[in-house]
C-alpha cells in the first residue's frame, strides 16, 4: 500500500515537472513578446525607469500581488537598493489566464528567482475579484 502510494506520488511529481517545464517554455515566449521590451532580456530592467526582476521580492513574493501587477499594471514608487524606478507599467489584462500563469512561472524561476509556479486557476481567481 505504502509502495503504491509513493509510486503514485512519484508519478504525480514527474507529471508536475513536465507541466512546469512546458509552462516555463510558453512563459518565455510571452516574456519575450510582452515584457522584454521594458524589463529586458536579462530581467535587469533599466536604471531609473523600469525595475529589475532579478532576485526580486516583487517577483518571488506574494503570488496574488504579482498577478495583480500584471492584470492592473503598476504605477507606484519602486525603490530597490537606493535607486527608484519611475516608468508606469500598463495593465496586461489582455493576456489570457494561461499566458499570465506561464509568464509569472517563468520569471519566478528565472533571473535568480526561485519560487512556486503560478497556476491558471490562481490567475482566474484573481481576475474574478474586481
Amino acid at each position, binding site marked *: 500500500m505504502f509502495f503504491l502510494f509513493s509510486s503514485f506520488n512519484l508519478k504525480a511529481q514527474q507529471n508536475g515537472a513536465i507541466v512546469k517545464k512546458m509552462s516555463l517554455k510558453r512563459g518565455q515566449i510571452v516574456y519575450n513578446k510582452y515584457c*522584454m*521590451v521594458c524589463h*529586458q532580456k*536579462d530581467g535587469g530592467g533599466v536604471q531609473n525607469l523600469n525595475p529589475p526582476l532579478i532576485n526580486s521580492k516583487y517577483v518571488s513574493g506574494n503570488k496574488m500581488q504579482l498577478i495583480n501587477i500584471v492584470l492592473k499594471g503598476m504605477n507606484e514608487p519602486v525603490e530597490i537598493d537606493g535607486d527608484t524606478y*519611475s516608468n508606469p507599467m500598463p495593465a496586461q489584462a489582455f493576456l489570457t489566464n494561461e499566458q499570465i500563469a506561464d509568464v509569472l512561472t517563468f520569471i519566478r524561476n528565472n533571473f535568480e528567482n526561485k519560487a512556486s509556479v503560478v497556476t491558471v486557476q490562481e490567475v482566474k481567481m484573481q481576475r474574478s475579484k474586481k
Partner: protein
Amino acid sequence: MQKLLYLYKQKLALTTLIVVFFLLMVSFGKINSNNTINSDYSKGHKLILPQGFSALVIAEVKGRPRHIAATVKGELYVKLKNLVNGKGIVLLNDENKDGDYEEVMAFGNFPGTGITLKNGYLYASSSTEVYRYKLDADDRVIDTAKPELIITGLKAGRQHETKSIVLDNENNIYVNIGAYSNSCQEKDRGLESKGMMPCPILDSAGGIWKFKADKLNQTYADGIRYATGLRNVMGLDWYTQTNSLYAAQHGRDNLNSSWPQFFDTKKSAELPSEVMYQLKQGDNAGWPYVYYNHLEKKYIQAPEYGGNGKIESKEKYAEPVVAFPGHLAPNALLFYKGSHFPLRYRQGAFIAFHGSWNRAPEKQLGYFVAFVPFQNGKPSGDWEIFADNFSETATVMAPREAAHRPCGLAETSDGSLIVTDDTKGTIYKITYTGK
C-alpha cells in the same frame, strides 16, 4: 613559350594579390588613424576617441552623478540623482594637480539632475524647484546652507521628472518640464490606448518654461511657456553664436508594444528620431500628436492620434536641426566655446547619449558622446560619434551590460570636455594632445 606565359600570369596574379593586400592595409590604417583607442588603460577604461584626443578618468562619484558645471578655476560642481549622506551636490577639485579630482565639499539637501553656472551664481534643480547659490570670485559657493529658491511648484510626475536648466545672456533661465507620460494615452504605455485630445499635460509640462534668473519664489504664473510639444528635453544649452536656445529631446517609446499592428520591433527600435531643435519663443515640436521620422525627414501622425506609421502630419511643427536614430537618449547638450580642441570642433555641439533601452529585442545603441560640426550657427556636416565605447563592450543587448552611460557634459576653462556617467559614477576628462 607556353610555360613562360604561364609564369607571367602567375607573377601577375601574385602582384595583384600584393597590391590588393597593400591597399587593404592602407585602408585599415586609415580607419585606425581616424579612430584610435587613446585612453587611460591603467584604470581599465577604454574610450575610443578621434586621433589626437585623450581621455582620463578623473573621479568616481557616488549617488549617480547627472549634470555637471565647471568653474573658472577648473573645479567641478556635480548634481546627484540620489542623495549621499543627505547631500545632492558635490564640488570636485584636483588640489595637488595629480589628475585625480577629490571631493572638496558636499551640500544641497535635494537630489536632481540640473546644474549650471552663470554670472556669479550656481543654479541647481530638484524635480519641482530651482535654487541658486551666490559664488565668490573663485566660483566657490559662499553659503552652502542658504540657497535662494527662485522657482517652485513645478509639475513632476514619476517619469521625466528631472529639470534641465540653462541661462541666456539676459539673465533668463530656461527650465525643461518633462511630460509625465509617454504619449499622452488614456492608459499610459497601454496596448492600443488612444491619446487624450487635447493632451491635458501640455498646459504645465511637455515643454520649456522661461523664468527670471534673479527673482525669488517664482511659480508658473511668473514664467512663460517658451516652447511646447517637447516630451522630455534633457540636453539644453544656450548658443551665443545665434543667441538662441537649443534642445535635444527624448522621443516617445513603445511604438511596437502599444501598436504592434503598425510597427514591428525593427521599426520601433529605429523610430522615432531623437531630435535636436533650435527653439524660438512659441515653437511647438508636436508631442504627443506627431513624431519625427529622420529616414523620411518628416513628421508622422502618432498612432494614438489616428496615425498608422505612414500618415504625414498636416500641421507644421518646429524644424529639426539634427535628427538622430531612435531611443539613443540625449541626456546633455553642450556647445563648445573654447579653443583647445582643433578648429572643426569650435562652436560645434557635443551630445551625451545615455544609450537606449527601448530598442529591445534589437541591439541597444548609444552610450557615446556625439559631435555635430557647426558653422555660422548651422550644422556644417553630419553628426558623428566623438567618444565611443562607454559601454566597454561591442554589443549591448540590455542596458545593464553597459559599464558606463554618459549623462552630463561640461567644458572647463582650459577647453577640456568633462563627461559624467551615472551608472558607475565615473567622471571623464577629454583633452586634445595632438598625438
